[in-house]
């Protein structure tokens, strides 16, 4: 039994099917890459499984429990955390306070939450900036902060939505190191990515979406050679390499 | 027709007539919201100003309200653009709280300014071109009410035509649909926002001038009408001109029928109850897209 399973997930908006009959699983401890051309439905999928959209059909199971249609707060309480494609830090609070908000889920008392938050800041290399206002961080810093905040909720499964977008090479390098460290700590990770150079070496397995459907589900080496994937990405492949 | 039926039809007709005026007022409110996601909490006060302008034009210079309509509409149009440029523009990117407070503050300011300048006294306009009443099939219709209703319907129709059939109208709708994309297509959002405010207040100007022919004028007169407008905008669907129009008429009929069938003093509760009912049960209203 896999840690996280999706069966026949479908999401339609009006007449448009953004996600169609998606079936896939995530195994405990792996890093799963979720890729696909623009508009393939990756973020919709994230929103469906983390409770922001109710699926039109299908089921989502986590740790052998039906979580389909659960509201976002319940999903997080169960152990699934996420980041957002457009970063959403709480600008009016400091870096530390942002992470504390995440920590409060498992540590209701302020001193405990602060301790947990500081630990997470250490882990993600943000400790030296703990008193900065979140809105003053760079994009890389904000993405890092959002990740730290999600980590503070002590998730078993972490969904990262384009965590590498907009980062320069050295920032990507640092972020990848953090993701590896998280896997070492036993956190299972699903990452939506466009930056192929990052996801191919990092992921244990890759699922490819195109037009709302799964077109491939395999290890990275075979994905790169997969006819359907190349077709879906025709042209994109060259852009993604940059 | 029996007496009861006559009374019923009479009430229905008067509700319909005032409904058209409600509709015009609501259309302005929904236009602003549709284009820039801001609720004009001072909408009732703008209506009140229109009514006072009409009153002063009549009292000081003997201008008949019917002739005053375009003048007041023009004045309110300018006021709308001015309000946008001086006030609203500064809070477009501010948090929603600031946006709420700004038009709310405007409401408090205008309402009490009117009270300060013109006192609480109820004012009425005397004889005008439209004074009198008509009788149709045993139903009595006040001529001012009829003219107001027709005027409101025509104005709403003209506004609708403008939005659907002119380039500027399309630009306005495009901006309402998606500000960024409209900007990319060469539409200047600033101009569109100012235009939206100008048109919205001009509509209220027409409604106010027409209302002034039969409705008493006092500093708080806007409060009652704006309440209906809030509800109509919600019922019709935030941002939908058609929706606000239809909803305005519906509420006009419902509140007057409610007063007739139930209790006149509970009319307000009925209308408010409708608002609460809509936002809880069907938040997108009849024609809404949000």
């Amino acid at each position: 039994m896999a840690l996280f399973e999706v069966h026949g997930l479908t999401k339609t908006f009006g007449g448009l099917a953004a996600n169609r009959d998606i079936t896939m699983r995530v195994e405990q401890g792996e890093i799963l890459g979720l890729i696909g051309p623009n508009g393939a439905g990756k973020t919709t999928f994230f929103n469906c499984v983390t409770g922001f959209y109710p699926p039109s059909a299908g089921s989502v199971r986590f740790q052998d429990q039906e979580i389909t249609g659960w509201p976002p707060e319940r999903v997080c309480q169960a152990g699934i955390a996420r980041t957002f494609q457009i970063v959403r830090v709480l600008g009016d609070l400091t870096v530390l306070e942002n992470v504390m908000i995440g920590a409060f889920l498992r540590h209701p008392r302020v001193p405990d939450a602060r301790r947990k938050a500081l630990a997470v800041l250490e882990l993600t290399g943000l400790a030296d900036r703990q008193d900065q206002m979140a809105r003053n961080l760079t994009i890389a810093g904000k993405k890092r902060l959002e990740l730290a905040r999600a980590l503070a909720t002590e998730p078993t499964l972490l969904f990262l939505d384009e965590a590498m977008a907009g980062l320069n090479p050295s920032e990507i390098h640092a972020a990848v190191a953090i993701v590896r460290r998280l896997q070492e700590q036993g956190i299972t990770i699903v990452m939506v990515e466009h930056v192929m150079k990052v996801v191919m070496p990092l992921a244990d397995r890759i699922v490819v979406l195109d037009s709302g459907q799964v077109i491939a589900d395999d290890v990275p080496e075979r994905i790169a050679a997969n006819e359907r994937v190349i077709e879906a990405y025709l042209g994109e492949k060259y852009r993604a390499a940059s | 027709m029996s007496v009861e039926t006559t009374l019923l039809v009479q009430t229905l007709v008067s509700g319909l007539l005032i409904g058209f005026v409600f509709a015009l007022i609501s259309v302005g409110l929904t236009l602003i919201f549709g284009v820039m996601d801001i609720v004009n909490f001072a909408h009732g006060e703008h209506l009140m100003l229109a009514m006072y302008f009409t009153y002063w034009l009549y009292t000081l210079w003997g201008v008949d309200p019917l002739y005053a309509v375009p003048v007041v509409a023009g004045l309110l149009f300018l006021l709308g653009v001015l309000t946008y440029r001086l006030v609203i523009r500064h809070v477009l990117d501010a948090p929603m709280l600031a946006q709420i407070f700004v038009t709310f503050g405007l409401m408090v300011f205008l309402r009490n300014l009117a009270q300060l300048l013109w006192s609480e006294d109820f004012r009425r306009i005397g004889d005008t071109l439209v004074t009198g009443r008509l009788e149709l099939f045993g139903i009595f219709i006040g001529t001012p009410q009829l003219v107001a209703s027709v005027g409101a319907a025509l104005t709403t129709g003209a506004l609708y035509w403008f939005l659907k059939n002119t380039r500027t109208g399309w630009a306005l709708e495009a901006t309402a649909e998606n500000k960024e994309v409209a900007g990319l297509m060469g539409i200047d959002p600033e101009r569109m926002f100012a235009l939206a405010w100008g048109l919205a207040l001009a509509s209220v100007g027409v409604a106010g001038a027409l209302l002034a022919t039969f409705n008493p004028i006092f500093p708080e007169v806007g409060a009652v009408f704006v309440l209906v407008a809030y509800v109509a905008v919600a019922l019709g669907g935030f941002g939908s001109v058609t929706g606000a129009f239809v909803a305005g008429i519906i509420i006009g009929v419902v509140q007057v029928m409610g007063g007739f069938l139930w209790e006149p003093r509970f009319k307000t509760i009925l209308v408010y109850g409708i608002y609460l009912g809509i936002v809880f049960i069907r938040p997108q209203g009849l024609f809404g897209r949000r």
Partner: protein
Amino acid sequence: MLRNRLPQLALVALVLFLLVFPTLFPEPFLLRTMILVLLWSVLGLAWNIIGGYAGQVSFGHAIFFGLGAYTSTLLLNNWGISPWLGMLGGALVAVIVSAIIGWPSFRLAGHYFAIATIAAGEIFAVLFRNLKWAGGAVGLYLPIVRGDRLVDFQFNESKAMYYYIVLGMLVATALVTYWIERTRMGYYLKAIREDPDAARSLGINVTRYKLYAMVISAALAAMAGTFYAQFVLYVSPKTVFPLALSIQMALVAILGGTGTLAGPIIGAAVLIPMAEYTRVYLAGRVGGLHLVVYGLLIVLISIYQPGGLMALLRNWQHRRRQRKLAQAAPVTAPAGGMGDGSV
């Protein structure tokens, strides 16, 4: 060293001043104004919990003030129940009503929620205007009880006890606010205010926390309502349910600074004396002048300094500190924040 302690010293001085105020200034109008300042501080702080910290702007809080006033008065007039118990009863009623109104309303976005609160407020006003057993439009008079005993919650010889009671209420309300600020609830409310969806993704049950804030806010407003009823010995829909009252509650907090502890108190300290002065000395036509100024103030604050007077104060303090630092250390040190992309 004494200069560093200036804010604390000022606070102590203020507290002492407040404690001896009735002895220093027994003049009725002044004392009454001060009582109102303290009462409105309580109301502003109460509004602040849901409107400032949670970010749900309500223009209907007079509902809870009125419910508090009416509940305790009806209990007293009909069954002789002590106003102190009535105060608790009023708070209970307010908690229940606020939960019923709030729970379905919270999913409404800002504007629609605000309109819904106006709607609810008006419904209550009309309702009480038509309830015969609650006095209708005429209202209810409270029986005058001689003796100035604390247990009667009525003081006719000297208003000083009223002053101390409302001062106590203010201290209690401030403590509640302080407690909220310093615990998880305060952090959660800040997150909810800024980004409810992000908050939900972190496991925060947004509706539940808004509900907590709402009922606390309502209970405090209701208790203030009971105090008011005992103070003026008269309740009517016009005096305890009007939209103007809801507006003033919001205004006091907005002017002083929403989401802060001192904000509503400062707001009340500035607004209420102005209101009382214009009401009494410029009565009649110019009696509404303070409201015109209010309106203008809200507009200006919203545009230029949404954080209110508190924010202005903090900016001024910040600039003073910057200037001092610049003077003390002429050698430029690197400003905080590395914008060079290093992580």
